[in-house]
């Protein structure tokens, strides 16, 4: 009855990289500044190599980084940052300490000055560290009551075994034992500019922003300890690991599959194979277990990159009573993509999605800052966007099929299920061998 038909897409323009500059300072700190003048703000990201740092101390250090310097209290720091519309916070992953912040662009100098104070004259006052330690312990306790956290913890242990990546959250007991003096020592050892990358993105002149960073941070010196993490071990498929969570109304299904770093020639094809399988909403797996069967709300898959290895992670929270069927469909979809080439149209759809989301991620200051910082920590620069887009555009159907056979085969998966074991063990055992977690 309606005359409306689906309009054609206007082809994308060529990717235009923003104006940027880069300088490695004499101290070993690399500064990358990117101009996007859309709003009068600046985004800041600082990544400091932190691989193999003692976990409990490193985690508390990241929580307590802004508790005070020799000349400023935690409240001074927060108030002075606020005065320029600014804020800074810190986090930790198994490879890096990450400082994230932003401010009005007119406050960039002040934000850098405060950051410099935090980096070069940390005090870790006993009182404030005590507060942060207690908060971290409480926070970990809450995390330990969340199924997503428990499932991830179990998967990491199963995947990484004795490798440092196996444990990424300390226990409350370990955190309770950390003393301020240990934070000061760890800071002196590891919070160093050598190998660190500072990214500034915003309504700025890139060269001048780097000058400002150089002025403010010239006093941050020194070489950190070797942070090289040994290569992650290959995945060792085995029985499905079942972790009991009595009374759970859902099961957390997790699978790890092999993957390759961003720079690997297989990466673009693997990324597209992942998309077709389950890496976005319009994928086979999501259409199957959500839109057809209604087993789950937000199933998702993604390739996680760490410095010492990459893994493809499959995740879904499914109703307890359909845990077996949900695993069945997951194995089916993995088996299908690993065994048969994708259709032309579904591959083109996945390709356009992958290319489009790259553009979207470049369209904000925060998006650009995140990309530039993550890329830099893997030795890449924003021009990787152009190269990666070209590579995605060139991937053939055969290459996707090859990558899927190599990386997405269900026989290669490490599987963990967290749920009410009494209810789900039987149905899961019908599909694969199951091993109960010792905990």
């Amino acid at each position, binding site marked *: 009855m309606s005359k409306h038909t689906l309009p054609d897409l206007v082809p994308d323009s060529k990717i235009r990289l923003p104006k940027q500059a880069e300088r490695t300072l004499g101290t070993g700190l690399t500064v990358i500044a990117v101009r996007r003048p859309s*709003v009068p*703000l600046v985004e800041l990201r600082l990544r400091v190599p932190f691989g193999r740092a003692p976990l409990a101390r490193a985690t508390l250090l990241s929580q307590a980084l802004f508790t005070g310097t020799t000349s400023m209290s935690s409240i001074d720091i*927060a108030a002075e940052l*606020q005065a320029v*519309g600014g804020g800074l916070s810190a986090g930790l992953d198994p490879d890096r300490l990450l400082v994230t912040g932003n401010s009005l662009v007119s406050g960039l100098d002040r934000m850098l000055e405060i950051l410099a104070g935090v980096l070069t004259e940390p005090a870790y006052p006993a009182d404030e560290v005590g507060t942060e330690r207690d908060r971290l312990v409480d926070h970990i306790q809450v995390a330990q009551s969340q199924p997503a956290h428990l499932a991830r913890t179990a998967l990491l242990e199963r995947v990484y075994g004795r490798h440092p990546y196996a444990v990424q959250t300390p226990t409350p007991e370990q955190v309770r034992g950390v003393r301020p003096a240990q934070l000061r020592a760890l800071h002196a050892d590891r919070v160093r500019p050598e190998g660190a990358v500072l990214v500034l993105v915003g309504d700025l002149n890139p060269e001048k922003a780097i000058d400002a960073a150089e002025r403010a941070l010239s006093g941050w010196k020194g070489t950190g300890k070797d942070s090289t993490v040994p290569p992650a071990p290959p995945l060792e498929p085995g029985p499905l690991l079942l972790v009991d969570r009595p009374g759970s109304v859902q099961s957390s299904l997790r699978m790890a599959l092999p993957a390759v770093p961003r720079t690997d020639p297989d990466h673009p094809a693997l990324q597209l194979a992942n998309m077709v399988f389950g890496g976005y909403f319009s994928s086979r797996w999501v259409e199957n277990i959500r839109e057809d069967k209604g087993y789950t*709300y937000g199933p998702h898959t993604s390739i996680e990159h760490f410095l010492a290895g990459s893994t493809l992670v499959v995740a879904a929270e499914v109703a307890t009573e359909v845990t077996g069927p949900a695993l069945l469909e997951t194995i089916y979809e993995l088996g299908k993509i690993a065994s048969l080439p994708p259709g032309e149209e579904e591959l083109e759809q996945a390709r356009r*999605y992958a290319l*489009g989301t790259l553009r979207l991620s470049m*369209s904000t200051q*925060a998006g650009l800052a995140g990309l530039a910082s993550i890329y830099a920590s893997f030795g890449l620069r924003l021009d990787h966007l152009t190269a990666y887009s070209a590579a995605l555009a060139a991937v053939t159907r055969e290459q996707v099929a090859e990558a899927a056979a190599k990386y997405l085969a269900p026989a290669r998966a490490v599987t963990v299920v967290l749920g009410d074991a009494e209810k789900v063990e039987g149905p899961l055992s019908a599909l694969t061998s199951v091993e109960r977690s010792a905990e």
Partner: protein
Amino acid sequence: MKIPATKYPVERLTLDNGLRVVLTPDRSAPVVGVAVVYDVGIRSEPEGRTGFAHLFEHLMFQGSENLEKLAHFRHVQGAGGSFNGSTHLDFTDYFEVLPAGALERALFLEADRMRGPRLTEENLRNQVDVVKEEIRVNVLNRPYGGFPWLKLPAVMFETFPNAHDGYGSFTDLESATVDDAAEFFRKYYASGNATLAVAGDFDVTQATELIQRHFGDVPARPRPELPGFDEPGLTAERRESYVDKLAPLPAVASGWRVPDPIANFQDYLPYVVLAEVLTDGDASRLVERLVQRDRIVTSVGGYIGFMGDEYQVRNPTAFLLQAHMPPGGDADKVLRVVDEELDRLATGGLAPGELARTQARMATHLLRDTDAVLGRALPMAVLELQRGRPELLNELPRLVGEVTEEQIVAAAAALRPESRATVEVIAGANA
């Protein structure tokens, strides 16, 4: 520090069928954001049909006049874009962000479902299942699920629209019928009851033509009368608690009624700023006192609106404070200290620079949100719907900066214990 402002251009027009349109072009990145907002939300769902507004939001993705099930998702993502929708107390939004060359496609998709979604028994049952899993993930299978946004309204309000659980009971969700959905669509999803906003990389003349082409023949239906949801405020303190079997630590949240966010924006805005004075960062009053000095909470947050949508909510709404406590935490003590701090602010005023720095940080947050095309399209669509003033988005940093110490002090003085509603989470897990 001078508070800067954005100058996003704003063009407004109304189609013959009553659809109100906002265009805000910005050629700085080759992307567009498209938002369609309908003037119906959780407060409008009928008794016995809790959760229906949200369930219906799901049904709007299940195919429409010219589109099979799954087609909407595939067409957006196959154009390189992302989509979503969300159900609020007073509105329901649907949105896409895409490469600029997909603008017409997004307009086609939104217009097609504005003409009518495919409401089938099969799709309804499927989405009831999906919504139940959503509720399990977000509420039933995790600690602090629905705290406080699903728990506090029932303590604070008397009437069904304001007090009920907007995610819905499983019984009500399972009772929903295709006829209910058809009636809900007919009544509330009229073009005159909606706004469309487009932000990003487009030419206004061309976009106007595309909008006419796709939305121009959406049949006009009468716009339902906007109900008033006001009810009397509290005359005495209310307090409830519940055991959360999954929660290892106690928590508490309180709400106070605030002036009408739309009819009385002038008096409302100081409460928005007060929430930040009290809880934004380590130098804020309540973080300093409760977290750092007294160490009786591990975190505290303050905001307006149960969904944190302070500029997109109608009356009645609330100023909210929520705090998580350490083991054995004492909610009474936390509330006493909050009262003390409010009194101190009401009688002693602000410290030098305290208001200005809070306003500067708020400006950063506001500006940062608008850097994304959807951070403009979505709020502008809602501001048009509720106020007829999408350009308010440009003015907010300045208006926040004009709030005075006297206004903050008066707002703090109005948050009295006797007008407070509180809900406490009793930790039920053995941590």
